[in-house]
């Protein structure tokens, strides 16, 4: 829990510092700005609620074992494709994602495939998309960002295949 406490202290510390900087420019401005943030919050709460509660149900439909199955010793480009889909479909937080990658490495998954998996998870994990990215960012930007990110798990896998492991 100390990590969570550290995060919260840094987070609220940043809020306080920035709030103070706005405050020094004028009280009216600071109050308007804080109100703006609070309105954003009120607006975002229903979306976050849908994201949190919804992704719990989606995650319940996709058991981690299924994801691990897609990341077997199957090598080559089909393996990279499977790894990329698996990364996007992985439910849960970083512990789940990275652990699945570690298991895949242990059971003989190739490095390029696991790299594609980790990068795809970082770029597209559905839970982060619907829980954080879509509520906070303009939806148009999020879809745009995801679409132009599509080639990159494959590019990283290709680089990994070409260079090999150092």
């Amino acid at each position, binding site marked *: 829990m100390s990590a969570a406490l550290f995060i919260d202290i840094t*987070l*609220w510390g940043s809020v306080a510092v*920035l*709030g103070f900087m706005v405050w020094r420019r004028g009280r009216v401005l600071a109050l308007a700005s804080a109100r703006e943030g609070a*309105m954003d919050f009120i607006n975002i709460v229903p979306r976050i609620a849908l994201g949190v509660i919804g992704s719990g149900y989606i995650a319940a439909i996709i058991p981690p074992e299924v994801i691990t199955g897609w990341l077997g010793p199957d090598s080559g480009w089909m393996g990279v494709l499977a790894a990329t889909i698996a990364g996007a479909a992985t439910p849960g937080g970083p512990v789940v994602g990275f652990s699945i990658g570690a298991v895949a490495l242990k059971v003989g998954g190739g490095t390029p495939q696991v*790299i594609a998996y*980790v990068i795809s998870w970082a770029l597209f994990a559905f839970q982060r998309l619907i829980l954080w990215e879509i*509520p906070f960012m*303009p*939806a148009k930007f999020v879809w745009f960002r995801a679409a132009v990110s599509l080639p990159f798990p494959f590019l990283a896998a290709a680089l990994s295949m070409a260079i090999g492991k150092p």
Partner: protein
Amino acid sequence: MRTKQDETLSPPDLIHLAEPPTDPADDSAEAEAPRKQRRPIGWSMIFIAVLVAICVVLVWRRDGIHGVTEILYGDLALFGGILPRVLAGCLLGAFITEILPHEKVSRSLGPNSGLKGLLIGTAFGAILPGGPFTAYPVAAALLTVGADFGATIAMVVSWTLIGYGRAVAWELPILGTDFTIWRIVLSLPIPILAGALGRVVYLRFYPKGEAVE
């Protein structure tokens, strides 16, 4: 900055007040509001809601009503836990929008900022502390004050791929030093390439330079 298509839509202010959840114009109207606009429920949320509804039914058929309520209680607890951080993230975004000099941001991160803008976005994403509750509000604030899609894509992708927070806390202990460093080295060019690709595609989609949120 109004395009012909948008003139046929209702003005943004009306959309803020009304709540037309099925209005297909939502997304295009979003881009028009000069300042940070509050979005009504858009297509993305409807899509997610439908997906969630399907999954709830699947869980219910598999585990019965008990399975449904169990997940609901667990998620509600999680939801309560992250709310304060979401509030902090929103305040952070609002303050940053106020503090950052808009002209400077649009010069160094705007559509004409070139490779330098993508590099700044990448560096910013890599050093940004905190989790998703800081990264996304800050990215949204950058869009509001004049960064373009390309530089913001570079920032978001850099935060998720080469940001140190998650790598140090989770990836290193679970996947090991060798793999993590190798993975990050291979990821280094990705934010810049993604941002550049984003700019090219954006120009194809919006050749007239539609206002960025």
